[in-house]
């Protein structure tokens, strides 16, 4: 959503222009704030090579039904763990008791990489990995429970990208888990199908919880705070599938005002600090019954890929749909927010429209709409129970921003709840 650090209007992004863009002042909704803190540095604690080898060997030999236990204690590993088998459970003694630290890691880059179905991981903390903390690539029936991932030095661009990271998975449950300090997204589910993220806590990440190119996801009863953006629902181009059908409800997305420390070029680097819930280029998304408060740019942002600054004529697949469609924002409890937007242009816009002590309304929309959706009732962005919708007028270079009054007064067909098969739902609470 870098609506935009890169004012690409009519410009040629070539060798020279790019340099200019790098130096250009931020555009609307831009998040150029960086918080480059020093990296964590190599630890001086002894690596537990024997335990590392023992656990890795168990993972190598694991057969369906096996439980690989990691004992209580703080363990220092210098190499990532990997699993390539179905039906395996990795279990610690609880996320406060079993702590695996990868500070000073020499190989990985992940803390744990998993290729496998019917996989459960529970009861441990993974710290300070070079790359992603826990990556699960391909597989069905995935459970992540009572897992904490964190980078202990706090927000830093040098931290690993993703904390809990299932990608290309199906039937995924992430619950009662935490993510701290990811330089991209703390809990990130990508290119997946049938996903539940619930009762998790995300803090000090660029994106707290992000659902990307995923079909059917329920995100509920989570807390996202002190991230740059609290909860994100994105669609990126060129990927194996387009996402739609995410419900975000009963969450707390509060005071996500962390300066953006994502590396430029990542999708999340375009998110302005102070974003509560962000929907970018996704469709059929419901945002309801959440407590969204004190996010200083806006409590909710709805935007298009055109606002990220990454849209090029050749770098995006022809079939990609860059417009958010069928977005329902209804019956949330909003409080505060919109008072100190990120980036000079947004600050200026806010001041011009609402005064020094004023604030944006709860919902900020970049104004991009698919011409093909004109008059299509079910493609609309419908907002009820918010203080207003600000149309930033991105298509006309932000010349005529305005408060929309009638346009979003509508409703949409509701999405069904995500149903997980029995294996993944053993501890399911009432879903809706």
């Amino acid at each position, binding site marked *: 959503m870098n609506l935009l650090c890169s004012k690409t209007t009519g410009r040629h992004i070539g060798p020279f222009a790019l340099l200019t863009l790098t130096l250009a002042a931020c555009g609307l909704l831009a998040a150029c704030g960086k918080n480059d803190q020093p990296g964590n540095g190599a630890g001086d604690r002894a690596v537990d090579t024997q335990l590392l080898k023992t656990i890795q060997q168990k993972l190598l030999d694991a057969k369906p039904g096996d439980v690989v236990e990691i004992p209580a204690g703080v363990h220092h590993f210098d190499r990532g763990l990997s699993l390539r088998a179905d039906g395996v459970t990795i279990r610690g003694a609880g996320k406060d008791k079993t702590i695996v630290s990868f500070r000073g890691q020499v190989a990985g880059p992940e803390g744990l990489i998993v290729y496998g179905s019917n996989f459960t991981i529970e009861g441990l903390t993974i710290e300070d990995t070079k790359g992603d903390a826990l990556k699960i690539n391909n597989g069905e029936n995935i459970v992540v429970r009572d897992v904490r991932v964190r980078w202990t030095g706090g927000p830093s661009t040098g931290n690993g990208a*993703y904390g809990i990271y299932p990608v290309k998975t199906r039937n995924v449950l992430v619950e009662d888990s935490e993510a701290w300090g990811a330089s991209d997204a703390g809990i990130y589910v990508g290119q997946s199908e049938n996903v539940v993220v619930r009762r998790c806590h995300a803090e000090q990440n660029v994106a707290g919880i992000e659902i990307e190119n995923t079909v059917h996801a329920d995100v509920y009863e989570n807390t996202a705070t002190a991230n740059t953006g609290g909860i994100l629902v994105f669609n990126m181009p060129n990927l194996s599938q387009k996402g739609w059908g995410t419900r975000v409800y009963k969450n707390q997305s509060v005071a996500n005002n962390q300066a953006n420390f994502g590396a430029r070029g990542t999708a999340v680097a375009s998110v302005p600090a102070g974003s509560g819930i962000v929907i970018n280029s996704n469709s059929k998304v419901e945002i309801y019954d959440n407590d969204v408060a004190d996010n200083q740019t806006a409590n909710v942002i709805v935007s298009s890929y055109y606002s990220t*600054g990454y849209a090029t004529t050749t770098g995006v697949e022809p079939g990609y749909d860059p417009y958010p469609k069928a977005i329902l924002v209804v019956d949330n409890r909003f409080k505060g927010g919109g008072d100190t937007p990120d980036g000079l242009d947004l600050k200026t816009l806010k001041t011009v429209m609402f005064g020094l002590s004023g604030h944006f309304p709860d919902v900020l929309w970049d104004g991009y709409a698919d011409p093909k959706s004109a008059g299509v009732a079910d493609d609309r962005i419908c907002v009820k129970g918010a203080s207003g919708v600000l149309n930033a007028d991105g298509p006309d270079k932000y010349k005529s921003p305005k408060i929309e009054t009638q346009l979003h007064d509508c409703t949409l067909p509701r999405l069904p709840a995500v149903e997980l098969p029995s294996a993944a739902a053993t501890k399911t609470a009432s879903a809706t």
Partner: protein
Amino acid sequence: MSVHFRFGRRLRAPVFAAAALAAACVAPLLLGGCERQPEAVKFIQDGKPEHLSDWHVLHSDGRHLELGTGVVPYDLNTPLFSDYAHKLRTIWMPAGQAAAYADRATFDFPVGTVISKTFYYPKGQGGQVVASKADSSHEIEAGRLDLARYRLVETRLLVRRESGWVALPYVWNADQTEAELARTGDVVPMDIAAANGAASHFAYVVPNENQCASCHMLDVKSRKLAPIGPKARHLNRDFRYVSADGEHDENQLAHLIRVGYLTGVPGAQAGPNATLTQAELDALPRNADWSDPKAPLDARARAYLDVNCSHCHSPTGPANTTALNLEPFLAPDAHLGLCKPPVAAGKGTGDRLFDIVPGAPDESIMLYRLASTEGGVMMPELGRTTVHREGLALIRAWVAAMSGGCVAAHP
């Protein structure tokens, strides 16, 4: 640093160890190597043999490394970069068995196939190793590697069992007489001297079995392993073979057909009299030699990205999550990285917007990641802890030679 085993013209290695040993015995100083009777390679159907010598693919007495009976060495047009390690690659199949040719995929090998890759370095001063140009004429002579001059680090086996390919990493001992199984991998600290004499310390990382898989798992759905090198486009080149009749240059595909290790090559008959004309060989896939200045820049770069990246960055590989596809036969579009926004790069973007910005290597994420040694940033993710300066220079030149830039799109 130039290509290893360039055109194979100088690599002397035996087709049949007996012949090689006979040749070696001509030199009186090497007589010690003749006391051992060569043993047949042993295909071990299951289990995890603790010693490399259990397989009889390679033998070392601490002074020389030799190839077992029927073990055929081979080279790739463009090899994977592995921290400047030199590599001896071999293949062996049970009697009467042959691999089936494939145009693009790895050849389909029979159960019992044993493929080895030995990583070694020229020795420098004070225990250092040297990042030197691989000049195999001085490395493998009469089928033997002189261990007075070269340090063996590890030998990786890929064994084709009934259940599929199995990866087994073995780490050589200090005496260089045996390599021990290291299923969970290892970290070998090393000091390496560059061409300009500057020494640097690095951690040579021996992969664990699953890390082997992270490159050799060519299909993330099946999660089955497969060799990467033995593909038509990598093998289609000459090699200098040693036999009882002396040395001769021969195309590797033609040689594999002739010794009965390969069938189904278009236009080729099987058997000892098999021949392929130059025109027939030229019609088969062939990657460029990345270091050949006479080859087209695009072909060199695509060959380099192919062998270093496309085992993951393919439509079926583990990096198919990224939409970056670096197989060499695909059109140059967004999936090659042109103006493609990154997907899951994190700090690996280096604050750059697109994988490749045509004409602007310094704005291209690909260059940033190739130039890094930091976990979570560097690409490939595994298999190196140093920067391949010459490979980086090649990709830099390739991107710089592109035109067009990236043009912003609007509704």
